[in-house]
């Protein structure tokens, strides 16, 4: 039963996480494939961003069959959407959207009159809009009537390419070209036709979302695996116990002449059956977990990366199969030692009394040896590399090492206490505790891992939260932030704002996009102002950073970008611009938490000079704080549709914080689940051990201890063990925090947070561990306290 439950829980957590990842990845693929069809190739602007439509015409006139796409971010109300402009007449047949060509009414409507805006039913629901509605975008452009189309990618609104250019205010611009299935195009031909303006990529490479979100998913996978490991501890413990219990039967069977391989084969069949039952139950549980966590994951991914994840879980056979394979692998791993023992089992064996002490010492030596091996592996992983995988390997191996070492440490502690104890019951308590370690150790190891993970992740998240909040305070200094609908509107608003008495500064925050080494990069302009020079947080900077930045050819680089490009202060950086590469000197490095893209900060004038397509619509305004509300009101009344979005500082901060909270909500949920699983493991172990415990306790009871006394001791022992695990978990958790902060975060996101400690969290975890132990021990101990004497007397029964 425990075996089944453990395996099912392990499989559930693992497959739940896998389901989430698969769902997200499918959605990314769907987003790309919905337009271009799976696979195939496409052309992108070589320097990132958009390119001229003329290039498309040139290619087509040269006989290259391509179909244009323009994509851009927009908003309807407060919901982010992606506008996708397609050209249905030339879309390759493989594109799912090309199916609309088969429906005359749809195609006619799309290409005539005001056109149509296709959105998947899910997207319509999310926008809370009905078919036929014509909402306005933040730029004040009215969409064509919305029409439901199942093939439309999630989170996107598909319109005609010309409509997209109008909605996104990008006349004559395209973001990519999809090559028809059989279009012959090689680099040489591309260069002949389009010069070096475009680059040819496989459609799969383009999934920027997949790239940006990789680390997010690796995180999830790592936690899923951690949970799986904890589950495996249970399975292993349960199987070991079951094996010990049936050892006499196995001996008898061997004595009756059953060959060892046959026994193992029979046991393997049994394991296979377990795998199916438990794996199946696990898959159902995994589905439920994924279903429960999906909305949160979807919102995290949306707010972090703008990725739209379909919220109706669809899973394929591959997912189910992988879950079963994991369950099977887990079962085999857990049962391997039993199989090996069976193979070695001699047909005739003297029923020797179990030499507990010798076995105990062997057990401790083995644990210590494995712990050492795991520790060495952790050190190797640390030395080996600084990547995400090695970071997780360090964490994994050190958790394992600590877990394996836990019984040794507990045994040592108990031996020491035994020597110090005088009262006979106390001495028995400690001595007997040592004996119980091996039975409880797997559950305790699971608890240790779960507690350490809680401390580790909790510390990282809390550290991040504090750093992030401080950083937001420093970064968001302007009182008002607004985004104009169009650059022209921006000019109008700017001109008006200049005359306003409440305004002390107008800070254009224009943005452009480029790509360095294939990585998407934002370039943000800054004007010379005290807002920046006095507040803008920098990690490293040249002494004259602000003067230098506004002088010439200087940039500030975000921490993650600097790390990725391997640049530091004083390095020269070649930035692809609209015209040519711009060589600039790095004068400062700034933290840019939560931004999946790289960011460069440059002088406002230089941005204008180098980037023709810089979107000049974002602004910060310094307004006297008490006038802010009135000012925003004024501005909205006056400009209305010309303002795409306007926020005051606190709104922006709370939005950012909310995104942050969501990001870690899933991590926290998985963490809690892991802890619950380890609690279940402890409970299961105690329950299965309680029969054995009676045999140990009955003589003491017979010698004159009360049941209540003994039950209390049992409880104290479990609690003490849990406390021991929690105490060991604290330094381990701190180490894990350090690994997450110094290795994993750096590799995954590119930023390094200061390492902080949160003792109240430790206390919480300690209390949680005690509570978990008490809860887990409650039933077995209560059973003992109320055991009828006859129950205990069975131990002495001669006819047993």
């Amino acid at each position, binding site marked *: 039963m425990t075996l089944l439950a453990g395996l099912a829980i392990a499989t559930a957590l693992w497959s739940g996480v896998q389901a989430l990842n698969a769902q997200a990845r499918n959605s990314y693929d769907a987003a790309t494939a919905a337009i271009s069809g799976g696979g195939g190739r496409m052309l992108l602007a070589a320097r990132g961003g958009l390119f001229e439509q003329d290039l498309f015409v040139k290619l087509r*006139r040269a006989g290259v069959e391509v179909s244009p796409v323009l994509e851009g971010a927009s908003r309807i109300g407060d919901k982010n959407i992606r506008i996708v402009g397609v050209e249905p007449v030339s879309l390759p047949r493989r594109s799912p959207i090309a199916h609309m060509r088969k429906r*005359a009414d749809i195609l*006619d409507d799309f290409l005539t009159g005001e056109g149509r805006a296709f959105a998947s039913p899910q997207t319509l629901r999310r926008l809370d809009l009905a078919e036929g509605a014509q909402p306005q975008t933040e730029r004040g452009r009215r969409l064509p009537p919305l029409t439901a189309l199942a093939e439309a990618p999630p989170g996107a609104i598909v319109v005609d390419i010309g409509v997209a250019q109008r909605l996104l205010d990008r006349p004559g611009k395209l973001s990519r070209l999809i090559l028809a299935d059989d279009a012959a195009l090689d680099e040489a031909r591309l260069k002949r036709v389009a010069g070096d303006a475009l680059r040819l990529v496989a459609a799969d490479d383009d999934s920027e979302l997949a790239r940006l979100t990789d680390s997010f998913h690796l995180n999830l996978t790592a936690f899923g695996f951690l949970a799986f490991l904890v589950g495996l501890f249970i399975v292993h413990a349960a199987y070991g116990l079951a094996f010990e219990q049936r050892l006499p039967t196995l001996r008898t069977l061997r004595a009756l002449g059953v060959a060892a391989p046959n026994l193992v084969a029979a046991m393997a069949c049994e394991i296979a059956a377990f795998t199916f039952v438990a794996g199946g139950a696990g898959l159902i549980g995994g589905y439920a977990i994924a279903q429960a966590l999906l909305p949160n994951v979807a919102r995290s991914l949306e707010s972090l990366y703008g990725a739209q994840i379909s919220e109706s879980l669809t899973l394929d056979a591959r997912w189910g199969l992988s879950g079963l394979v994991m369950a099977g692998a887990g079962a085999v791993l857990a049962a391997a030692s039993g199989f090996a023992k069976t193979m070695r089992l001699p047909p005739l064996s003297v029923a020797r009394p179990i030499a507990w002490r010798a076995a105990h010492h062997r057990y401790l030596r083995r644990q210590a040896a494995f712990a050492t091996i795991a520790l060495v592996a952790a050190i190797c992983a640390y030395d080996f590399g600084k990547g995400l995988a090695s970071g997780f390997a360090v964490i994994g191996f050190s958790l394992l090492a600590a877990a394996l070492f836990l019984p040794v440490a507990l045994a040592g502690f108990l031996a020491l206490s035994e020597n110090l104890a005088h009262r006979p019951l106390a001495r028995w308590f400690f001595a007997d505790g040592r004996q119980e370690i091996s039975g409880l150790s797997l559950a305790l190891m699971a608890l240790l891992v779960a507690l350490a993970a809680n401390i580790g992740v909790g510390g990282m998240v809390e550290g991040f939260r504090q750093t992030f909040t401080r950083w937001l305070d420093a970064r968001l200094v302007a009182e008002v932030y607004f985004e104009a609908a169009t650059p022209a509107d921006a000019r109008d608003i700017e001109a008006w704002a200049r005359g306003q008495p409440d305004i002390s500064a107008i800070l254009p925050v224009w943005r452009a996009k480029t790509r360095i080494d294939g990585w998407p990069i934002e370039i943000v302009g800054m004007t010379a102002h005290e807002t920046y020079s006095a507040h803008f947080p920098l990690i490293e900077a040249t002494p004259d950073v602000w003067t230098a930045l506004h002088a010439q050819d200087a940039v500030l680089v975000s921490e993650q970008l600097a790390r990725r490009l391997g640049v530091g202060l004083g390095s020269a950086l070649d930035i692809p611009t609209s015209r040519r590469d711009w060589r600039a000197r790095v004068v400062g490095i700034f933290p840019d938490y939560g931004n999946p893209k790289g960011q460069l900060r440059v002088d406002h004038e230089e941005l204008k000079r180098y980037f023709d397509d810089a979107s000049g619509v974002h602004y910060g305004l310094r307004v006297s704080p008490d006038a802010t509300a009135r000012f925003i009101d004024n501005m909205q009344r006056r400009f209305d549709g010309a303002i795409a979005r306007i926020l005051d500082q606190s709104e922006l901060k709370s939005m950012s914080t909310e995104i942050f909270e969501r990001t870690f909500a899933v991590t926290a949920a998985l963490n809690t689940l892991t802890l619950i699983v380890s609690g279940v493991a402890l409970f299961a172990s105690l329950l299965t051990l309680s029969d054995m415990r009676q045999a140990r306790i009955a003589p003491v009871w017979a010698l004159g201890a009360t049941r209540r006394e003994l039950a209390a001791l049992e409880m104290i022992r479990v609690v003490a063990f849990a406390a021991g695990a929690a105490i060991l978990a604290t330094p381990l958790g701190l180490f894990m925090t350090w690994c997450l902060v110094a290795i994993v975060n750096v590799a995954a996101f590119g930023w390094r947070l200061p390492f902080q400690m949160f003792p109240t969290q430790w206390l919480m975890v300690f209390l949680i561990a005690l509570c978990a132990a008490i809860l887990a021990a409650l039933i077995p101990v209560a059973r003992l306290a109320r055991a009828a004497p006859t129950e205990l007397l069975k131990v002495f029964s001669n006819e047993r």
Partner: protein
Amino acid sequence: MNADRPTGSRERLGAAMSRRSALILALSSTSALAQGFGGLGANAPGFKFPQPGTPLVFPKDHGAHPDFRTEWWYVTANLKGTDGASYGVQWTLFRFALEPNSARAGWTDRNVWMAHAAATDAGEHLFAQKFARGGIGLAGVEAAPFRAYIDDWLLETRDDSSGAGIERLRVSAGNGNFAYALDLTATGPIVLQGEGGYSRKSDAGQASYYYSEPFFMTEGSVSIHGRETQVSGRAWMDREWSSQALAADQQGWDWFALHLDGGVKLMLYRMRSVKAAPFFFGNWIDADGATSPLMRDDIAIAPLENMHIADRDTPVRWRVQIKSRGVDVETRPLNPRSWMATEPAYWEGPIFFSGSHKGEGYLEMTGY
């Protein structure tokens, strides 16, 4: 085309643009229009309609007429290679206005262009199709100097031409499997069909503007699966534009464009209806360009042999008779599998004929 079947927009476009469809369009009854094909099936207000007595003006009318709903430029050529083999080539460009006032700026332009191209020899029939939106320079037709294009497929005035007409053209098209480039040189005048180019299609008053240049001599090269051959021969160009639609009971048609030895050109077709007896129409064009319409009783067209092509029975040999002219010939295709698996799909390919007269030409069959 089977009009009983609900058709997709593109097929509908295709039906309307299949060159001879305009003829059928002209013959369709007004009641059929009311049966509702959606946009193109109805007499859409806002489009212009052909008016009798309107003289065609060249070179202006070689160009596009965006006030009209459908329009096409159609070239077929019967060729002989230096290798002694026979070849056929088709180049077709269609324009469809989705809405009146279709000529607009950029992506708001409401014209969709479609092109079909094919190269045929006795063993192969290779074809390709292209679609393009108007307004942004992917496809279009300019009158003078004449230039029709869609992507890299061209039908345009040759560099060595001085005139503003269509006397000296170059046509080219292809995909990865085939390609051709031919010089077309007119050896006879443009032929105005019907009443000075106003081609009446039904008693109900439906009509199209229609002219042809059947007197092209041509030479150039055809390449099939990378094997290029120098070729020469005769070509025929049709031009037609209108705004009217198809009949609902129309089942399909069989259309012949024949070069008779001696310089006479003959255009004939049979329209098959699910309701009525087949309808015949024809035009006898003398070597000097003089035309004489052929009355329906004068024409007999009958299939002699069917073949199973593209999952359907398609006639491949025909008996064609024109009693008043003593014509009684049997046609046979250069390649019976000249199936255009395009949208819409139809049979179109070079044919030979013999009997009372000898010669070559092109056959188009739809609705099988």
